[in-house]
């Protein structure tokens, strides 16, 4: 049962990920990405990472992709006209992709224990509180810095979006 669910979610995620790359319309690509992210959240849940899964949906699929769609609408992007084939890019891309695939296969088939099953976990603490404890106890400083980072990003976006005063 777990395996079947895993395969469903994984394959759909990959298919929609490929759709992001190969669809012509930007809006279609954005929506494919949203679906892909939701399936990714599902995979997180199969890994007992409930908090992270919810965060993924809320932040990534909810906020980030909405921002993408806003920008697509702002720039009024239409369907791309097919341009001539870029041999250089396809060759390079092909090389890199096949190189990566080869390496991936090599690593995963080596004797490093990648075939371990999921070990049992105790359910005394919910993973949200566990993550929260970790975050606020041991990673407090990075947490504060992340806050500052977000502030800086906000200010930066405002500055970058200003129109030049004529």
């Amino acid at each position: 049962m777990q395996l079947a669910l895993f395969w469903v979610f994984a394959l759909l995620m990959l298919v929609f990920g490929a759709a992001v790359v190969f669809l012509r319309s930007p809006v279609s690509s954005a929506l494919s990405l949203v679906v892909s992210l939701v399936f990714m959240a599902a995979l997180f849940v199969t890994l007992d990472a409930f908090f992270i899964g919810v965060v993924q949906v809320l932040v990534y699929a909810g906020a980030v992709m909405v921002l993408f769609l806003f920008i697509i609408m702002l720039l009024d992007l239409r369907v791309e006209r097919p341009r001539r084939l870029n041999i250089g890019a396809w060759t390079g891309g092909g090389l890199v992709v096949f190189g990566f695939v080869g390496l991936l296969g090599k690593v995963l088939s080596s004797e490093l224990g990648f075939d371990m099953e999921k070990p049992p976990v105790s359910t005394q603490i919910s993973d949200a509180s566990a993550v929260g404890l970790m975050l606020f106890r041991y990673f407090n400083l990075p947490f504060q810095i992340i806050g500052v980072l977000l502030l800086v990003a906000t200010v930066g976006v405002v500055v970058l979006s200003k129109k030049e005063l004529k």
Partner: protein
Amino acid sequence: MTPTLGHYLAVSGLLFIIGLAGVILRRNIIIIFMCLELMLNAANLSLVAFSRFNVNVAGLPNYNGQVLVFFVITVAAAEVAVGLAIIVALFRAKQTIHVEDLNSLKF
């Protein structure tokens, strides 16, 4: 039979490769940016998988991975915001979103 660590890592790797192929092949800068997000997500998946499969004696998984995923998502959000602002500014200056037309730094 349950999914092994290898399964999760293979999926993560494939998603990463799809994202990388998108970055190299597409000519629309917004799409390239979305493929970057794909790559980040692939990494997140890897992290969560490792976090789950690394259980200590008390039966709890090692939550460091999940905390790092939390940070990655936050930073990715900030990055998307700033990056899209830059793209908008670029569009206003050059009226194009094709990367081939953005070659002022060519020698």
